[in-house]
């Protein structure tokens, strides 16, 4: 199931709408990396509000995604991690420590705007 990716001026917004398989995550990563180049985006938001679970594979892939997109000159923000999901993740030692996070889409956009203005 392909995740819809929308373009909003210089940003790309990928909204995950249901549980993804490992393969779906890899496809999402590759699609975003490709589109960042094609549209010359400066920021990417991945919205995981709909996910009840973020296991270690998903987290690793999200981190890879953020690194790869950074190498292409854009900043990634993961938004919408639910309280229960956040709690479960830290208990398993998954902290996504090098990846920017924000509460929701609005906060994510504000974050990217600020990152823009300071770089």
């Amino acid at each position, binding site marked *: 199931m392909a995740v819809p990716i929308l373009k909003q001026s210089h940003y790309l917004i990928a909204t995950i709408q249901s549980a993804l398989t490992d393969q779906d995550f890899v496809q999402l990563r590759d699609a975003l990396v490709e589109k960042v180049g094609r549209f010359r985006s400066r920021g990417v938001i991945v919205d995981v509000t709909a996910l009840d679970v973020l296991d270690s594979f998903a987290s690793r892939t999200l981190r890879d995604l953020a690194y790869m997109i950074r190498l292409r000159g854009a900043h990634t923000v993961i938004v919408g991690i639910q309280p229960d999901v956040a*709690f479960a993740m830290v208990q398993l030692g998954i902290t996504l420590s090098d990846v920017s996070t924000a509460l929701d889409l609005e906060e994510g956009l504000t974050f990217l705007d600020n990152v823009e203005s300071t770089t």
Partner: protein
Amino acid sequence: MATVKSKTVNPAMTESTVALLRELVAHLRDNRTELREEWARRITEARLLTAMTKEEIFAEATSVYDNYVEALETGTFEALQAYARNLSERIIPRGVETDEVVGIVLLLRDVLARSLFAKYRSDFDLLNRILDAYEPAANRIANTVAVGFVQERERIIREQQEAIRELSTPVLQVRERLLILPIIGVIDPLRARQLTEQLLQAIRANRARVVVIDITGVAEMDSHVANHLVQTVEASRLLGATVIVTGLSPDIAQTLVNIGVDLAKMNTVGDLQGGIEEAERLLGYKVVMHESGPAPKKS
């Protein structure tokens, strides 16, 4: 001979035991006044129930005595259990301790046993049979009252613990996007977990960007709970909020170092005031004094 009112009798008792108990109960009823007075005297002598007046002791002694005799007579203990709970509810707030309650019930058992020795001293065989009927029932009664008392205490303790837990974890919003979580008292793993859940929900509900967790009021923390604090900081970050921890005591600072907390992950400031100032700075607030100075006091 006093007539015994018919009540349901424990079917497990044998015919002769029933007859003996009937005789016993009659004796206790006939000598009700003397035995109660003897018991109340011995309670005062043993310095029990010092939180109560002589009149109160005699009044409670009467209730216990009558319930005791009824339990002996019927062999059923529901009424006694209910009475024990009721009694406990009344006397626990008065400061009566478990050893006092157990003490007075055992004293009553002794007083009644002595009066049986006195009555049946010329017939050793009958005395033995009466005691065979009396002792199991008396022990069961002592047990019922003591257990009722202890259960009531435990219920009260549980209620108080729950009340403390609810009281002491408020999450407060002091500015737009800024939450404060002042923690006071002892944190056990259950409370730590409740705290984290509450905080994460509050971050989402208030769309907080910064949270100041103040632990000035926490005297000590074991490594288990310290780890939990670190997890709370990390989970909050996943919701897009920065956490500033303030008020760490030297002991707790030591604990955090011992468990090898990555200090780069922990944003700490010495006291709450400093923490709020740092939070305001992060949020882009600047606090300035009015040109005209402080507002005049309203008269």
